[in-house]
């Protein structure tokens, strides 16, 4: 089977900023690229610089923050009805119990499903690329696009806490204090987003090119 013609095999790079197809100077093609786009001046790279190690580093940071994010309370609320402190999961349960299950479902997806999906997917993608796997690159690319698309929505709980704290300043109504969990949760969101941003999806397709099996 002949290898498909890719930008790299032709010595052409796509400018990430202005989408111009530009010829890479041969000297810079293999090593660290310092070539610049002739039209807009952005740095031209065949593959994002150190994509895999950056993606992995951010992913590890996200994993470290994940446990405290889910175990520590993100909010403590004391009202005349009593006081309670909510973790992410408890917040969802309370929302569903209090009657607004459609909203509860959205929060469940945004705060529980999406972060988990991002961690699992990024792990899978990084392992796939590290092993130089040629299996189902289309599915892998689709997963990557899904993660890029839904990643930002897990910021939801951070905003909810901000608003609850900001709105309820009336001491007679309730006292709301942000918990350490919201810090950890915010860290998970930011680190998984950074991990997905540093990952270069072209790496998924590189093993299909004959003779370039271990492209990084």
């Amino acid at each position, binding site marked *: 089977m002949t290898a498909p013609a890719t930008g790299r095999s032709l010595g052409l790079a*796509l400018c990430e900023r202005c*989408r111009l197809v530009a010829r890479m100077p041969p000297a810079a093609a293999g090593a660290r690229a310092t070539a610049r786009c002739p039209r807009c001046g952005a740095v031209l790279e065949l593959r994002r610089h150190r994509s895999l190690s950056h993606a992995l580093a951010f992913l590890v940071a996200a994993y470290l923050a994940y446990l405290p994010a889910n175990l520590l309370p993100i909010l403590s609320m004391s009202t005349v009805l009593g006081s309670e402190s909510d973790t992410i999961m408890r917040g969802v349960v309370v929302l569903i119990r209090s009657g607004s299950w459609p909203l509860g479902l959205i929060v469940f997806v945004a705060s529980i499903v999406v972060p988990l999906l991002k961690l699992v997917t990024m792990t899978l993608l990084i392992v796939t690329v590290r092993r130089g796997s040629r299996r189902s690159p289309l599915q892998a690319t689709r997963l990557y696009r899904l993660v890029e698309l839904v*990643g930002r929505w897990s910021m939801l709980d951070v905003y909810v806490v901000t608003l609850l704290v900001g709105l309820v300043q009336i001491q007679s109504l309730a006292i709301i204090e942000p918990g350490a969990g919201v810090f950890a949760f915010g860290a998970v969101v930011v680190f998984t987003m950074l991990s997905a941003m540093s990952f270069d999806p072209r790496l998924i397709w590189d093993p299909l090119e004959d003779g370039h099996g271990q492209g990084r």
Partner: protein
Amino acid sequence: MLTICPQCDLAQDLPPLAPGARALCSRCRAELRSGVTARLDLALAALATALILLVIMNACPLVHIRVQDTDRSTTLLGAIIELQARGMSVVALLVLATTIIGPLIEVLFLAAVLVPVRVRHVGRAGARLIGWVQRVRPWSMVEVFMLGVLVAVVKLAALAEIVPGPALWACAALIVTMSLLRAIVRPEDLWSWSRIGAGGAP
């Protein structure tokens, strides 16, 4: 015309696109180009709208909260400052960056590039600003914030009467304006718009 897929690096020949058509990569199905016709004036109108909405969203109260005889209201910035006062400076900074600074940079930088494009061309400084717009876009989260407001309101509904303020409506309108803006202003369009501009006819 030869193009390269940004997501899988496949080189492929792209025929001229009909208006409204989209070209997908034949291997990984990523969008290569859309035939959205370059509408610079529409983009400028959307930009002006977004700017006005951003001002309203930040200057006006987000929600009013009524308990018995007291009526309190909070702005977005007020909520962020409150969070900071409770020892959550980093989280407050994150919220500030994603709800106020992010959208503001996106809109202002685009305006700084597009207004000169209307006149002549994208300069090197303009190209740098576009790079920033692309970098900031994922971090500007007005739509996620809006959903956050709704969840917070529902959570508080049992405790007090909540009345949406002008900033909330501005936020809703801003979501529509910003997605329109993101759909019509694509980085590669800017250079083709400026080429048209250089030819004389707009």
